[in-house]
């Protein structure tokens, strides 16, 4: 190539400047929307800062942190958030795996199955919450109609009106909504497993169950871990579905950390305390991310 030298001359002095210019918009926005807010959040958490009324900003040290530990609402919301994560992440993985295995079969037309996996992914979480709230309606919901036909209980199940049933309904909704994304990621992983592995196993006389555990699962591990990271981080932030299904009720039995933070800051305008709650949430997510990253490091 004769042009390389010209090209090299052209690029040499400007390369760094050009890179700087091209990356500047992205990093300016990251600074404004991510980095500055995190700093501001920590600063807020050490202050008594309310946007309602005229009170000024007062430095209070660790007072907000002490309050968080004594706050039963915080512990309740933290418990709900962790429970939702522990139930819906494995739940979505199992359902998503089932959907992916079914969707991976050799169909003549692939689009109906593909669209069926994409639609729940594209549906806003808030809409999924609204739709499933209607499904779980005590009097006119389709779920209770099916329950009545199958089990004919003496009284209809009060899905969204009883704490435990409401919690179950919310978890089922989250699992339905999120398992499709899981399935799409796993499906892509399944399609990358070489067919020859299965053929070889077949020759060796391995059963389908053995093939699943000895070939499919190990080969799928990278996809599974990626899907789990995404899902866990979003599960910890659960807001839209309980907000639209129960508003955190009955009482605050289905209130998540994200809902408590939102209520404290946006509704009550108590920015100082809300920020402290958010710091706890932040630390929780970082722990989870670090845990997964460590696992990835070990697997790689």
């Amino acid at each position, binding site marked *: 190539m004769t042009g390389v030298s010209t090209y090299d001359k052209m690029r040499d002095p400007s390369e760094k400047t050009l890179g700087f210019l*091209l990356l500047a918009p992205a990093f300016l926005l990251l600074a404004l929307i991510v980095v500055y807010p995190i700093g501001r959040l920590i600063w*807020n958490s050490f202050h008594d800062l309310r*946007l309602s009324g005229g009170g000024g900003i007062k430095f209070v040290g660790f007072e907000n942190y002490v309050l968080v530990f004594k706050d039963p609402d915080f512990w309740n919301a933290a418990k709900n958030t962790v429970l939702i994560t522990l139930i819906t992440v494995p739940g979505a993985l199992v359902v998503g795996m089932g959907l992916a295995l079914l969707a991976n079969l050799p169909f003549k037309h692939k689009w109906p199955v593909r669209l069926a996996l994409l639609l729940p992914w594209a549906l806003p979480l808030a809409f999924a919450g609204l739709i499933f709230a209607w499904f779980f309606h005590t009097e006119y919901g389709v779920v209770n109609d099916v329950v009545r036909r199958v089990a004919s209980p003496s009284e209809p199940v009060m899905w969204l009106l009883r704490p435990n049933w409401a919690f179950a309904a919310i978890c089922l909704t989250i699992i339905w909504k999120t398992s499709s994304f899981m399935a799409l990621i796993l499906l892509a992983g399944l399609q990358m497993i070489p067919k020859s592995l299965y053929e070889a196993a077949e020759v060796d006389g391995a059963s389908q169950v053995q093939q699943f555990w000895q070939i499919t699962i190990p080969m799928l591990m990278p996809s599974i871990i990626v899907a789990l990271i995404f899902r866990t*981080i979003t599960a910890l932030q659960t807001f839209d579905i309980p907000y639209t299904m129960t508003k955190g009720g009955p009482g605050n039995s289905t209130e998540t950390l994200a809902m408590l933070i939102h209520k404290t800051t946006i509704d009550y305008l108590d920015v100082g305390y809300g920020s402290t709650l958010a710091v706890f949430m932040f630390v929780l997510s970082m722990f989870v991310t670090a845990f997964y990253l460590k696992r990835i490091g070990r697997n790689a």
Partner: protein
Amino acid sequence: MTNIWDSKSLRLIAAGIVVINGFFPAVWILLTSLKTEAELVSKPITYWPHNPTLANYVQAFTDQPLLKYLGNSVTVALSATIFSLLVSALAAYAIARLNLKRRQLILTCIVASSMFPLVTLLVPIFETMRTLGLLNSYTALVLPYIVLNLPVCTLVLVSFFQSIPKDLENAAMIDGCTRMGALVRVVVPLAAPGVFTAGILAFVNSWDEFLLALSLNSNPNFRTLPVGITLYQGEFTFPWPIISAALIVAIVPIAVLIAIFQERVVGGLTQGGLKG
């Protein structure tokens, strides 16, 4: 050994399970939207509407400014998409093409931003927008949405840029193009499929976002669809046929979009996901 999935009818059942799982909520909402209020509260409940009516659709547009919400959602999602593409295309080009040290670190920084929970950023973003007088504006949502879309768009675009042979660009520059000229005339057209894929993902993300839209834009003039539709329910009343009609209106555009471009969407999702 015979594979049980060789049977065509079993394969049909498998496809049926996946399809029903994906479509039943939308179908049920569609059926609900066609029922009259009287039919809805009859017991036992009906599955198929007896006297299908479109009255709920009319009411969905008159009870709440649904058309305004739709317009707001389109404006916000479209502007967020365009700006996300612009910002991430520049960054992705620098990462994929320039001879930079620590390019992997730069990419990791951008992708890691998606690890921070949005709700923890909500409070300071709310304060910032309030200070800047941007609460209840399109900008209040578009700015954070660009950042929200940045990781996945950058990942998709980096891998597309990397797949374009460098020689093509060099040839253009030998022929007298500037570096920017080569970018616009050679790289961008070749990366168009990638830009398109990233664009759809950005659009769906922005269209679906709820928490920021709820917190930053409470004024009806700037409300987006997901927030607006939760407002049909009163304190004690849930006008389900009307909510269902509004939901159908809101779901159809996004459903059509992903139906047309499904292969691209799947490709982009798995690419963004598996590389992250």
